[in-house]
């Protein structure tokens, strides 16, 4: 079992206790601890997933798949890199990764804020449904695939097929875009978008980046209703 430090932070060492015990305690609202430190994650999967309380969880090291998956309310910070499906289906709260994230970061997220200070890989924001994602580095191919709502901010570059089959999500990229996917087009960056971007960057703690340097991308809405004349676009 972890030890409560004098600071009031509950410390759990995954080298000493099973992941199941950590997640059980994090799910237990009767536990009462509001701040947690997780030591030695060593790439474990499903660390701090399914949280549903206003607690802070600091993870000291790298995590595997689905860290902070389906999170509600909690703030989870990974002082390392994260594997596939980081913060998948995020509902609310904040997930921050100091390093880089593997593919499908923020997949199908419905709310909350995901911040990746390094790079995110392929399919970042795939099927996003309201989540906000800020990536300080670059994202890989097929990011924001079938993205429904929410905002994806990429301070670096984006890979091939950005926003393929996008719905109403808004994409902002500061660097190069290798290619746009089906029905994704560049759109005018108006003042309200600059304000929105500046707010997202500030909330993400990303300094030194000018919101006016971004380009905005979104749906051309040409594929919203199937028509055979558009068959070649699919």
């Amino acid at each position, binding site marked *: 079992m972890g030890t409560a430090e004098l600071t009031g932070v509950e410390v759990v060492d995954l080298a000493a206790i099973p*992941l*199941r015990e950590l*997640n*059980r305690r994090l*799910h237990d609202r009767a536990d009462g601890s509001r701040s947690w430190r997780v030591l030695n994650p060593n790439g474990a*999967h*499903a660390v701090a*997933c*399914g949280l*549903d309380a206003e607690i802070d969880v600091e993870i000291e090291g790298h995590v*595997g*798949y*689905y860290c902070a*998956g*389906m999170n*509600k309310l909690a703030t989870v910070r990974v002082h390392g890199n994260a594997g*596939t*499906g980081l913060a*998948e*289906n995020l*509902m609310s709260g904040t997930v921050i990764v100091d390093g880089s994230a593997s593919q*499908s970061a923020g*997949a*199908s997220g*419905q709310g909350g804020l995901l911040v990746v200070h390094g790079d995110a890989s392929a*399919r970042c924001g*795939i*099927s996003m*449904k*309201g989540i906000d994602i800020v990536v300080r580095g670059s994202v890989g191919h097929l990011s924001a*695939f*079938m993205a*429904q*709502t929410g905002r994806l901010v990429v301070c670096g570059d984006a890979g091939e097929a950005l926003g393929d*089959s996008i*719905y*109403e999500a808004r994409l902002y990229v500061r660097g190069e875009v290798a290619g746009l996917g089906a029905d994704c087009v560049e759109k005018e960056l108006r003042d309200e978008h600059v304000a929105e971007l500046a707010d997202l960057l500030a909330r993400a703690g990303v300094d030194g980046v000018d919101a006016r340097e971004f380009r905005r991308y979104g749906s051309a809405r040409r594929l*919203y*209703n*199937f028509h*055979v004349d558009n068959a070649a676009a699919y």
Partner: protein
Amino acid sequence: MSSGAWHPGLRESYLYDRNVIAEIQRASREGIYDIRGFGAKRRLPHFDDLLFLGASVSRYPLEGYRERCDTDVVLGTRFAKKPLELKIPVTIAGMSFGALSAPAKEALGRGATEVGTATTTGDGGMTEEERGHSKTLVYQVLPSRYGLNPDDLRRADAIEIVVGQGAKPGGGGMLLGHKISDRVAAMRDLPQGIDQRSASRHPDWTGPDDLEIKIHELREVTDWEKPIFVKVGATRTHYDVQLAVKAGADVIVVDGMQGGTAATQDVFIEHVGIPTLPATRLAVNALQELDMHRKVQLIISGGIRTGADVAKALALGADAVSIGTAALISLGDNSPEYDEEYRKIGSASGFYDDWQAGRDPAGISTQDDKLSARLDPVLGGRRIANYLRVLTLEAQTLARACGKSHVHNLEPEDLVALTVEAAAMARVPLAGTDWIPGRHST
């Protein structure tokens, strides 16, 4: 052409029959493939091609109206803290709110609950109607993740990861714009009136190794309480079942190509996947090879219509079956009561398959408020309960005739096949012989 229109000299082509000719003409006119609901309509090897042997001098029957023949089944005994305990081995398959009206979903829940079995959500999430009226509700995790949230995961009784379905293994879904009401759009986080595509792949895992980790995450989120089902369309069934076992499934659902759909291309429905009959045998063998038969439960679906189908699936080794199309027919789909209205929209009772169109006169496959209001969920629930009882009684009748005190005691040895194809696929002898095609002699 009615038979009365025939006269000597008129000879219909087998290759180009009237349906083929009409489809070529329609395709040329409209320039788009045919999208429809229902399942495969072609003739396929099925449970009809099997027969029970019944009792004889060497087998002792049970008295039909006196002796017990139990039907209960427990699903999810492998890892879940709270397995599903069902009174009958027939569940309601996943069908979405969106594809179906809210009263239809409610009726399915009511009927299933009345007879002690489970119903299942579908693409688009969980509605209050079905949660409120379903004592046992299986919550699907689909590639689209429409409406997926941890609260509903936790208030579900089991979780079903949908890899594919029998009507369209390898295909996603499409809910056409005219079925997207305000409520459906809100549940799916999409604008009203647009075509809503459901992805064919999950967004955050690919392959069996990832699936194992995904299942682990879902168990962690729900504190290892819920049974986790993995549903696959019947294709490479042997490998899919073994990989699902390896990934940690509690229950595997195998949906044969006769399984229904709300909206899929006809070419997909009729030409992808394998029938339920061979899929059942492949799945059971795959479990037996791993010594996991009865430890990981097997649910078979796709064309289950009668208690005979139920009994034959169980005899081949399934733990339970699921019904979808038959449940909708039970609710009132294709009812003669609406024949005139079916004809107004270019169909007829007994033929209606345009479940994608949202104009269902029976109020089932629609989001139109006026049409939906035609389906009384209480009456619909009663019909479902009646039908499920009949399926169960029929299966019990057959089991007793074979001398079984539980429907799960039925076994392949009780079966013979009517056709060489069915004998090969089900791996039971051709009737009157001891020949199982493909069985290697020793």
